[in-house]
């Protein structure tokens, strides 16, 4: 496309944005985050892009829809991949993981690669929905390629930071004079995972007052926790808004909380470890029972479920069971360029891809278990192994 592909794609818009910004409101203070990042769930049909699947000049467009927490590492993957395959033009869009799949299964957009922050969504949504053009499921395999870890982000100026430990955090977050940021669990996986953190801590300690201490009486319609037969159910109401006197700030996406942390408007927020490291913020690492990173605790995690008390998507039953955070990648049945998509996944999982992800604090798994291994292209079977 150009001899400065990265500069052209990534920096020019930034420069022009700054020019536009200065012409509209020169010198006004801002605390926007340096780069747009983590944003899982998201938006709306307004964001729906009609992306052409046709070739752009001599290049083949390869459309990648990925989870918001992959923005920063995938930008580097994209650049390196395009440098290696100059005939391919990667076009990446980032949304919440559910929204990513909805673009395939409900909006039927020509998407070549789907990368989600929640592997369980692939069978839930793509296996279960057929491509009307072929009569086959939108996907019948996926590769688990990375994990992540829930952490509690803060700044050196956060209140009570000197008293913050992996035991005291629930009590500190519930103090009325701290500002706690909550990604909206209706839109952002980080939001329902933040809710899960309290329930997991309760189950770990067998102390059942932490969730209520944090969330009871904070919302106009209640967020509730209920236990029965060893299972913990957290319910999110259709309308989630805080009461006026609350110390909880809800934002639509976790990326917005990073900006508020940096500006001092927030004291604490749950985020993903990779994202916090990418932004250079402080973080409290949580016990494995809470941080959703330990495969060996899968059975412990799964007793916590978050359910949305409404149907947001026609094809999604909105309930989320706690489990280790796993990122997955697949090629939709409707991909216009499946062979090029295979190249992208091969590159992502290659030593070069591993190095790029590692450099961006989002390391890949040591090996890549594949669900639906027998259905995968041979080139990807060669670099993965059937999951147990």
């Amino acid at each position: 496309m150009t001899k400065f592909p990265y500069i052209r794609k990534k920096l020019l818009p930034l420069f022009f944005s700054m020019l536009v910004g200065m012409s509209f409101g020169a010198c006004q203070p801002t605390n926007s985050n340096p780069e747009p990042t983590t944003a899982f769930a998201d938006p709306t049909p307004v964001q729906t892009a009609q992306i052409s699947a046709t070739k752009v000049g001599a290049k083949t467009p390869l459309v990648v829809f990925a989870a918001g927490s992959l923005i920063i590492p995938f930008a580097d993957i994209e650049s390196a991949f395009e440098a290696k395959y100059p005939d391919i033009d990667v076009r990446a869009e980032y949304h919440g993981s559910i929204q990513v799949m909805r673009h395939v299964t409900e909006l039927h957009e020509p998407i070549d690669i789907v990368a989600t922050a929640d592997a369980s969504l692939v069978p839930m949504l793509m296996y279960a929905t057929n491509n009307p053009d072929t009569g086959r499921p939108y996907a019948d395999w996926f590769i688990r390629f990375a994990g992540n870890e829930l952490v509690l982000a803060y700044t050196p100026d956060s209140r009570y930071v000197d008293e913050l430990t992996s035991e005291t955090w629930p009590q500190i977050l519930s103090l009325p004079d701290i500002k706690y940021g909550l990604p909206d669990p209706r839109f952002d996986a980080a939001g329902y995972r933040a809710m899960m953190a309290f329930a997991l801590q309760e189950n770990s300690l067998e102390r059942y007052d932490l969730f209520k201490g944090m969330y009871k009486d904070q919302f106009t319609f209640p967020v509730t926790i209920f236990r029965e037969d060893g299972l913990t159910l957290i319910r999110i109401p259709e309308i989630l808004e805080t009461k006026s006197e609350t110390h909880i700030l809800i934002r639509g996406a976790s990326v917005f909380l990073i900006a508020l942390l940096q500006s001092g408007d927030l004291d604490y927020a749950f985020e993903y470890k990779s994202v916090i490291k990418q932004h250079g913020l402080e973080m409290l690492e949580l016990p494995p029972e809470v941080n959703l990173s330990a495969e060996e605790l899968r059975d412990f995690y799964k007793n916590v479920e978050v359910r949305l008390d409404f149907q947001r998507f026609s094809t999604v039953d909105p309930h989320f069971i706690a489990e280790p955070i796993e990122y997955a990648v697949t090629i939709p049945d409707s991909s216009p360029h499946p062979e090029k998509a295979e190249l992208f996944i091969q590159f992502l999982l290659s030593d070069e891809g591993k190095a790029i992800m590692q450099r961006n604090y989002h390391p890949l798994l040591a090996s890549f278990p594949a669900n639906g291994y027998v259905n995968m292209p041979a080139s990807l079977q060669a670099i993965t192994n059937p999951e147990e």
Partner: protein
Amino acid sequence: MNRKLFIGLFVLVFVLAGCQPASVPEVEAPVEEPPVAEPTALMEEPTAVPEPTAIPEPTEEVSQEPILELIGPDSTISFSMADLKALPATEGMAGIKSSTGKITLPNKFKGVALQDLADLVGGLNESMGVNIVAEDGYSLSYSYDQILNGTYIAYNPVSGDELKSHDALTAIVAYEMNGNPLNVDMDGNLRLVIISKDGNQVTDGHWSIKWVDKVEVRPMIMDWVLAVNGAIDTEIDRASFESCVSCHEATWTDDVGQVWKGVELWRLMGYADDAVKHEGWSYDVKLAKAGYDVRIAAADGFDTTVWSDDADRNHDWVVAMLVDDAPLEEKNFPLKFVGAGLEKKQMVGGIALIELMVPAFEEAAEEEVQETEPAVVVDLSGSAFAVTGMVKTPTGFTEESLRALDVVTITAEHPKSGSAEFEGVRLSDLLDLAGVKDGATTLVFTADDGFSSEVSLAEVLAIPDCLLGFTETPGKFKMVMPGLPSNTWVKGVVSIEVK
């Protein structure tokens, strides 16, 4: 891209950046911006989503096809585009900030305010919301506060920073963008947008919905009805049940410390155990003691049956509508039978019916009985206190028989003497036992010195802490009437006549 131009731009930006933050979010231009005003590189940004240029349509050919269904609590209205355009229009500027920080600068939209639509089907109150549904099934709900007060987060459209304060924001169902009809292929006929007067702010992208075809104005709290069938069939709706709980709250705490709150089963039996259903105050103790099956059934048919005598004034068997002060979850909603001594399989959730296996009431026979039945004469001579008048069973009590009931200790404020602790039996329990008849409105308290005082039955029922209080002298009682005048706090009370 010309290399010199690029270098020139870089230098210019570098100079100007001295008073700017290190970066700003991606910004999209509104469609009315001339294309030349935006750099081509920006337009090529993969994540950028240009607003499509609207396709003008001749205004004289406004479609009469239904494009929007407005559903209210009691009515549904279907609108064509012409119908919508005939409503008062609201105009303003709307732009969005996506969850990844990308900004679409404000465009001018015209449409009908959500509040105006809600008003067409009865309006909104604080317990209601508006659910917007798109053609593909996507939906999202907006709160009363958002619709009436515009309580959205707003951002500076240039820097992307959250604004500490912002201009008024209004949700509209838009049918025009920048003076033209929406692009049907891209936006659908209608689009939900959040507008403000000027284009100096944007809102979260998730509040902006394309392809809108349905607006539902509805309560956010789901209503339900409990059927209680027996001698008569009756129904208790959510509001009535809540009212019952506020007067006769009963709780049970499970093994993980969750507090279930509702009404004791026996009080609900009183609604249908005979023909007297008067606000549930007609519980037939004798019938319950004689024994009958009480079947508690879920909407899906799952049920359990208990014996009426076991339920009789059993304070540990609760039909709960709240757990930890929150409505029950989907599996148990709206009511669950819980309590001490019950097996798990007896704790039926999702209750829709309580069925009392008693003979059906035959109205004609009852009328005949009423015509010929002599007044009930009960010898109360051995009692220290009696409930008489319009009750099914005039009942006398001694200190001992009262203390065998559910004795409570409360702190109550006497209008003159101030706060003190009182021990006694709830008046509502005594009235339950006696069985207040239909049409009763007043209680007359009479003291041993002949003093008497009247109070409204409804007022007493609204105050769960009204007691027949014990005194230091066995066999002597006093009324404890928190919230009511001092003349109702009758000392030495010997009877309550229900009138």
